[in-house]
């Protein structure tokens, strides 16, 4: 209980911080520009590579094979590096790695260290450590150099200083060099070239990260665009490589496979300017040294975990961040510990511990957009869930809320009480909770609940219904009208329904890591489900939750989303309805990305006469509702919602249709708060209206 109170007390200040972040126009605009550019570039560059899924399968298989025998592969690399006259050190943790590199630097006899961009070195906090030894450390990637001089942290994996304008960058260098620097990217770059060139030539030690290591032949691959990496690696007398245990692949061809996809997926470039391959000491000058430091720091332990080992395939392309609605809104200073984004939550858990990881994980909406772009097929949302599950003492308020909403009786009482006392629309909550209603209104739950009504209509189990309806908690207690509309709609399409006894699908429990509760609910629901008959859903989230029972070996009847079911029912026939309006469909994340249902809703809507269907990338964006997320991180949720609403406005959409009551709550809340002339409807309601209240067709424009 103390944890819950602590969490609740922290919420307002967390919200204030998030509010500040989302209201930083410079950061927002810069992120927007970068992410749009990278996403467009990626799409274009991918065309030349053929089927993306084939790449994913190939990369995953190749990388898993290597990780499976990583010990053997590294043994081989170690042997070869040492035979060639280099040194090889496996650092068990961050401290050991730092100390080892510190000793190498001190033994070099000099004190100037030049560095290429390396997130592994950031993971072990190498720079402050080397500086504490009296060494001068100079980052040489332009973005990293800006960040270093400004005393900040990277906000983007590929463009670390993306949050700084050219004017700010000019100020940073003016301060560092003690003279006026013009705010022109070209001139600044040329000045930095001159300044850093001197340092490259004088440096005693050059440290770089490495993207991929092949075991046969043993070779270390480093990709950069600026060419600073290869200067760090080849100019100073002491070359140090620091990289993670997971970077290993079997053959050189495998490394090349990764580089075929890495720059394309990352920034939309076919190839980066420089791919440097090192195999041992490059003795172009006498006495040059070659040192390899491989970092474990939790990695080998993670390889033993069936889920975390999937994160080990990450090649740090950053594509998952470029499409992430949360990252896009708050950036890498907020949605990160050292590793950023959803995958960052997993990596933070591996290398830094659960407490930090949980903080990162709590910002993820679980929308799964990242799943579509990860070239290594990493199940990022599942990893985020796992982090929450393991970090048991964190997120207590969230867990408490979920335990409440997951229990039908409790939920029923709470909702019943709310329905009694709340006004029809809540446009402003008092006190700090006002943040929740800043960009959306809240609706009062509708009464009475769905099940008693359905039973009064004779829909109970075993009365000959050909299909079973799983209504879900939101339809049951919040939007029972959607359930009534679905019953009416299906009756008119000649379908006989039955309802089943229900518990919460368990998805909310799963998303906060309450796996015990999740399993308990799954067992109950599986017991209630009549076998064999199709199970129909009005909520994409519930369907996805129940679909996941299969992971634990649950045997399910065939599951249907309403659009799928109706299309199948209609067969070759068209939908008998009419609705004259500009209509868009909002794809619930769970429907599209977790269940893979992408075509049916649009196919069905386009069959309705009079519908002018509006399509676009924005139709597939998360709405920011994400169940409890809208209450947990309201400023972020609201910003994500805004993008959707702007699209509706731009396109002149009159009716927004979707298949998830949670999305409806968010979208309608936003639309009504802004006073937009858009109707937000569940697919069942829309189709019923299209069929008309009577028997002679649907709605004309002037009827609305």
């Amino acid at each position: 209980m103390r944890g819950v109170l602590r969490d609740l007390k922290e919420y307002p200040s967390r919200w204030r911080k998030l509010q500040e972040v989302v209201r930083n126009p410079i950061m927002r605009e810069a992120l927007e520009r970068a992410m749009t550019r990278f996403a467009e570039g990626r799409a274009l560059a991918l065309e030349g590579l053929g089927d993306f899924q084939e790449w994913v399968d190939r990369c995953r298989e190749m990388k898993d094979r290597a990780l499976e025998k990583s010990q053997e592969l590294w043994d081989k690399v170690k042997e070869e590096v040492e035979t060639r006259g280099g040194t090889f050190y496996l650092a068990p943790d961050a401290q050991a790695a730092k100390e080892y590199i510190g000793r190498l630097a001190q033994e070099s006899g000099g004190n100037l260290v030049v560095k290429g961009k390396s997130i592994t070195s950031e993971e072990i906090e190498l720079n402050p450590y080397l500086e504490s030894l009296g060494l001068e450390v100079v980052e040489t990637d332009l973005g990293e150099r800006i960040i270093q001089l400004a005393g900040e942290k990277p906000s983007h994996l590929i463009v670390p200083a993306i949050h700084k304008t050219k004017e700010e960058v000019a100020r940073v260098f003016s301060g560092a060099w003690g003279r006026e620097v013009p705010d022109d990217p070209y001139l600044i770059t040329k000045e930095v070239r001159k300044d850093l060139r001197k340092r490259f030539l004088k440096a005693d030690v050059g440290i770089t990260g490495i993207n991929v290591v092949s075991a046969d032949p043993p070779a270390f691959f480093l990709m950069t665009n600026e060419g600073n990496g290869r200067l760090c690696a080849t100019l100073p007398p002491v070359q140090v490589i620091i990289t993670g245990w997971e970077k290993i692949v079997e053959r050189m061809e495998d490394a090349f496979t990764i580089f075929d996809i890495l720059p394309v997926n990352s920034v939309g470039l076919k190839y980066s300017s420089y791919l440097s391959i090192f195999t041992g000491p490059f003795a172009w000058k006498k006495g040059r040294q070659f040192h390899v430091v491989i970092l474990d720091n939790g990695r080998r332990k993670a390889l033993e975990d069936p889920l975390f080992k999937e994160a080990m395939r990450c090649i740090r392309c950053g594509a998952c961040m470029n499409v992430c609605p949360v990252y896009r809104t708050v950036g890498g200073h907020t949605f990160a510990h050292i590793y950023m984004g959803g995958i960052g939550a997993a990596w933070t858990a591996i290398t830094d511990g659960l407490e930090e990881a949980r903080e990162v994980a709590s910002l993820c909406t679980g929308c799964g957009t990242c799943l579509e772009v990860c070239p290594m097929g990493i199940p990022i949302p599942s990893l985020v869930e796992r982090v929450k599950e393991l970090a048991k003492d964190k997120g207590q308020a969230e867990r408490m809320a979920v335990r409440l909403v997951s229990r039908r009786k409790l939920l029923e009482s709470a909702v019943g009480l709310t329905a009694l006392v709340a006004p029809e629309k809540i446009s402003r909550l008092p006190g700090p909770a006002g943040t929740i209603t800043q960009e959306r209104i809240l609706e009062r739950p509708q009464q009475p609940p769905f099940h008693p009504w359905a039973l009064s209509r004779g829909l109970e189990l075993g009365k000959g219904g050909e299909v079973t309806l799983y209504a879900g908690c939101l339809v049951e207690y919040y939007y029972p009208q959607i359930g009534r509309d679905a019953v009416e709609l299906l009756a008119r399409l000649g379908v006989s329904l039955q309802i089943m006894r229900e518990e919460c699908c368990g998805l909310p429990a799963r998303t906060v890591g309450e796996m015990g509760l999740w399993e308990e609910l799954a067992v109950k629901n599986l017991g209630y489900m009549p076998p064999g008959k199709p199970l129909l859903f009005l909520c994409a989230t519930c369907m996805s939750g129940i679909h996941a029972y299969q992971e634990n070996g649950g045997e399910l009847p065939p599951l249907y989303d309403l659009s799928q079911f109706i299309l199948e029912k209609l067969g070759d026939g068209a939908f008998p309805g009419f609705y004259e309006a500009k209509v868009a469909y909002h794809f619930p994340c769970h429907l599209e990305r977790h269940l893979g249902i992408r075509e049916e809703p649009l196919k069905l809507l386009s069959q309705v006469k009079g519908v002018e269907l509006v399509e676009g990338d924005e139709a597939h964006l998360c709405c920011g509702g994400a169940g409890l997320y809208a209450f947990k991180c309201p400023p972020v949720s609201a910003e994500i919602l805004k993008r959707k609403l702007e699209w509706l406005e731009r396109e002149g959409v009159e009716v927004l249709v979707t298949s998830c009551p949670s999305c409806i709550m968010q979208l309608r809340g936003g639309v009504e708060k802004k006073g937009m002339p858009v109707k937000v409807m569940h697919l069942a309601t829309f189709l019923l209206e299209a069929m008309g209240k009577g028997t002679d067709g649907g709605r004309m424009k002037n009827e609305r």
Partner: protein
Amino acid sequence: MSEDRLFSRFVEEFEAAGGVLLYPRGEETLEEVLTRMVEEEGIKSYAISQRTPRFKVIDTLFKDLGLEKSRDYPSLDLGVTRAHGAGALTGTLVFVFKEGRDHLLTSLPRIHLAVLRREDLYQHVSRAVAPHVQDRGELPPYISLVTGPSRTGDIELTHVTGVHGPEQLYLVVVS
């Protein structure tokens, strides 16, 4: 892929990445295109990595043009080196280094001119690297794959070339 198709694909990708194919180009002779490059880029100093007859031709031309041959690599205008191979699909050049200072000519001067034999062109760059890593005992310690000039977008995503490496990459292909 036919040899001609391979070559035209390579040129397409090489130039898309920001490289400039100097020769062969239309009817112009090697001397003509190199002279134009020297004038346009304002090249005053240079160094050359090899002594083979082909490089002698270039060396002589530069001397005749009055360029200064220097060993002060970091301050050079132009470095001339051989490219040991190329990959057409990405427009990538392969440079293989075992010892010596030649690698500095690809990384330090303001402009890099590479000379590639047409028979060293492969479809995928990995095929161009393969012949150099077959003998495990003789693995070159450093192989540099170069695709266009050095570039950055780190300030407001503005594209700028010549950050730490050459700001221009020229190529001569010989048969």
